């Protein structure tokens, strides 16, 4: 099962390597990983989309928590959250298809951000479902290049995530 995990980390030397190394050393999957500063420049947030059964997920969260530079780990699965991804996509066009592609892009709420001689560059922001449906819609025209940021996510309750301390396994 897919899980979106948000990890608050100290913005320190080598922290990305620690996280990435943990996933590779323990054989966990990373589907996407997005990193950026938070409202506090000393703290970064990583949004990781991963795959695994309940037991694997339990281990992923515990092993992440074990890293000294990790401040907090939240699994958004089964919670209310916003999830967005930015995709840039280049589609081959000719005089005939240009209009069709533009219409498809408009219908999905995406935007043409560059018009080339034989291609269009399109920007799309949305959740995984929207991104995939745009991709499917444009595939018949010939996709030349896809660049995706990976997903970012945020809980939508009124609390901030940055409560101190790590969760315990005790019930």
């Amino acid at each position, binding site marked *: 099962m897919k899980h979106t995990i948000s990890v608050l*980390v*100290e913005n320190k*030397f*080598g922290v990305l*390597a*620690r996280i990435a*190394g*943990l996933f590779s*050393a323990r054989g966990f999957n990373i589907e996407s990983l997005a990193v950026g500063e938070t409202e506090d420049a000393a703290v970064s947030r990583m949004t990781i989309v991963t795959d695994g059964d309940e*037991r694997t997920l*339990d*281990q992923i969260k*515990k*092993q992440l*928590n*074990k*890293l*000294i*530079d*990790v*401040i*907090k780990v939240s699994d958004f699965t089964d919670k209310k959250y916003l999830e967005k991804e930015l995709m840039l996509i280049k589609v081959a066009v000719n005089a005939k298809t240009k209009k069709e592609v533009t219409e498809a892009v408009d219908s999905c709420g995406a935007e043409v951000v560059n018009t080339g001689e034989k291609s269009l560059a399109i920007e799309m922001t949305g959740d995984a479902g929207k991104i995939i449906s745009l991709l499917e819609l444009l595939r018949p025209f010939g996709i030349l290049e896809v660049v995706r940021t990976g997903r970012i996510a945020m809980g939508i309750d009124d609390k901030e995530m940055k409560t*101190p*301390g*790590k969760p*315990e*396994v*005790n*019930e």
Partner: protein
Amino acid sequence: MLDMKMTGAQILIEALKKEDVEVMFGYPGGVVLPIFDRLYDAPIKFILTRHEQGAAHAADGYARATGKVGVCLATSGPGATNLVTGIANAYMDSIPMVAVTGQVKTRLIGNDAFQEADITGITRPITKHNYLVKDVKDLAVTIKEAFHIARTGRPGPVLIDFPVDIQQAETEFHYPEKVEIKGYKPTYAGHPGQIKRAAKAISSAKRPILYTGGGVITSNASGELREFAIKNKIPVTTTLLGLGAFSSDNPLHLGMPGMHGTAYANHAIMESDLIIAVGARFDDRVTGKVEAFAPHADIIHIDIDPASVSKTVEVDIPIVGDAKHILKGLLKYTKKPDTDAWLAKIDEMKKKYPLKYENSDGKLRPQYVVEEISNITKGEAIICTEVGQNQMWAAMFYKFTKPRTMISSGGLGTMGFGFPAAIGAQMGRPDAVVFDIAGDGSIQMNIQELATAVYNKLPVKVAILNNCYLGMVRQWQELFYKKRYSYTCLEDGQPDFVKLAESYGAVGMRVVRPEDARPAIERSLEITDRPTFIDFRVEKEENVFPMVPAGEAINRMIGGMA
């Protein structure tokens, strides 16, 4: 008072003094010269090993014997990479260690400079945490954090990479009193509700068993374990790293479980209805085939590391915290379960499947040598081991009575660990009798440390169970590879260990007959100013039995059962 200006090298020494470091182990080199210049007249005993790997293992052995943080120091590049095996070893066995490595100048980092290695990158997966100090102003806090992280929670090694220009740079020295790390707050007190739940489960268990590991020793909880087990009459099995946590002369003691465990410990686990795991991590050498492990038992798991819980086996009652705290809690809430029938059954198994070996044909056997060392030292010596058959015989036939007396490479299984670890243990416990039970293969992996032991007048005793083989690998080849002894015979090229020891200024002895074992061991105990090597020429193809073949259920043992 104004804080004094000091160089980075000075700050390191001052910080080590603040951390009460009395002994450290290491080896000099180009980019640690400023540190060595300060060590020249520092009030810290520096033990110059003959290889950096020896320094890391010695720091590890020191930490295991004393409970303090072991400290080692090496130069950049090859010095640092030579520490790697020792650091990995400490990591796998949760041993508190701080390793300091020199690094090339900060402006040269990443340039493939002479003797440069990305040691923080290399050691990232084998340290609890590591640091590269890029500003001398961060140094004191870094050292404070390193020691704190190494010794608290589930202990482990922490590496500080220390560039030479930072060693020379100056700043005010101020050693912080407290550490505040946002993402590091180990849980010590177990959850009271979980402790009560566990106590309730124990009180109503019919066939409970305590499965105890290195965590009991780390948290100095042997006293609590003893009290809890005896008061509630619950049998105790101890892992390799847990040996000594519960005295083997107690009738409740079942010895070690797992691949080379006692038959009665393994059968007891398989028949148990409640396993109380304390500071043990259900390693594959203990569980065997994990799907078949303890099929009738509920599991209580007490561990300070949440990630150890439900990692390999599903746990029914997890309690995250320190073993000592939690055992105290359990003592308070547990009502003694009725275990009389269970203990009677275990006694029957003990009689039916004792640990034994052929001992009537006048041949010198390794098990006999270990038993004699055990008898002569009354189970009170510090026993370091190498890895392989020697290690298993030491674990099976030495009657450990006290914590911190079994020093063995458990998780990583590092050949060459025992001798330098014995040097570290002897440095930490100068009055203790320290043995390294070795094989002829393992001892040659760090034999250069003879010089270290001789120079420091350390009376470490090395009992080489010499069968001219890499015995454990040979045993597997005999049992599972049709006796095709591929590259496991060490006879050709084997040195004369007696002469070798003597050439370093140590004492060398050779024993070929069983009746000569005792006098040789007794003589070694009289030597107090230098190491002793005893070359026991044991039966060459003796096997470690009983044995659970890899991947089998732990009650499917072969050998030594009839």
